[in-house]
């Protein structure tokens, strides 16, 4: 089966083809509220990447769902991020919900709030949610950019739901 995922051996829904940016392309810039535990403010992604040296943008499914709880726990335990790379999430929760999520998960990572899903639209990774009329979110994906938004590494899910290749991503982070 095409796009078989790592933990299950039965077919799950496949995403349609996407024209998302790939390695070597420039990542589309965007400005959204960047939520931290204590406050949020509008921050251009380009500014975040420039200040951090490089950035891993984690496009992730709804807060509190079957994926987000596990993903952020895994990322937290792996201790991603540091002096040369900033890890940042983006999902469709409004800022107050992001704050509660950060607090509950004890995250040191900030999260972009994008209820309109404009970032996913710009990256061509829109996921219309089955059974939730009128709601779309990003497909599971990660985009690693250097300080001027050139893409160093890209992973975009081909099936729903799919878990990020943590080890592969970690290798890429190690090469920065």
């Amino acid at each position, binding site marked *: 089966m095409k796009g078989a995922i790592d933990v299950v051996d*039965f*077919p*799950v*829904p496949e995403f349609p083809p996407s024209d998302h940016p790939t390695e070597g392309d420039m990542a589309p810039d965007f400005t959204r509220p960047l939520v931290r535990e204590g406050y949020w403010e509008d921050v251009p992604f380009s500014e975040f990447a420039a200040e951090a040296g490089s950035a891993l943008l984690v496009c992730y499914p709804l807060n509190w*769902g079957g*994926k987000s709880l596990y993903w952020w726990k895994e990322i937290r335990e792996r201790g991603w991020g540091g002096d040369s790379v900033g890890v940042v999430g983006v999902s469709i929760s409004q800022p107050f919900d992001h704050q509660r999520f950060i607090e509950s998960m004890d995250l040191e990572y900030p999260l972009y709030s994008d209820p309109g899903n404009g970032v996913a639209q710009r990256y061509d990774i829109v996921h219309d949610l089955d*059974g939730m009329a009128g709601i779309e979110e990003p497909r599971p994906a990660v985009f690693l950019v250097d300080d001027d938004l050139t893409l160093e590494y890209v992973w975009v899910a081909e099936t729903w*739901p799919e878990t990020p290749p943590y080890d592969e991503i970690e290798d890429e982070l190690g090469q920065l």
Partner: protein
Amino acid sequence: MSAADCDTPALTLYRLHGCPYCERVVRQLDRHGLEYNSLFVAGEHSRRNVVAREAGTRSVPVLVDGDTGVTMAESGLIVEYLEKTYGEGGD
């Protein structure tokens, strides 16, 4: 299914956003062309009292079939049940 039931599907699926086992069942329901109530529940098991009351478990997916009186968990069993009841050999 009687005419009176047409507006309300007899099948109800309790599902979790981002759960591959739930998507597996969704895929089979769609494949059999079945209408169903799609109910999303919380990620945390502690917040799934409604599922516990209905099915005696906090794991999803859970399928409830009002026509046959069946309530069941475990995606593999549900897929098997759907095939047997609504698949080529069923009905």
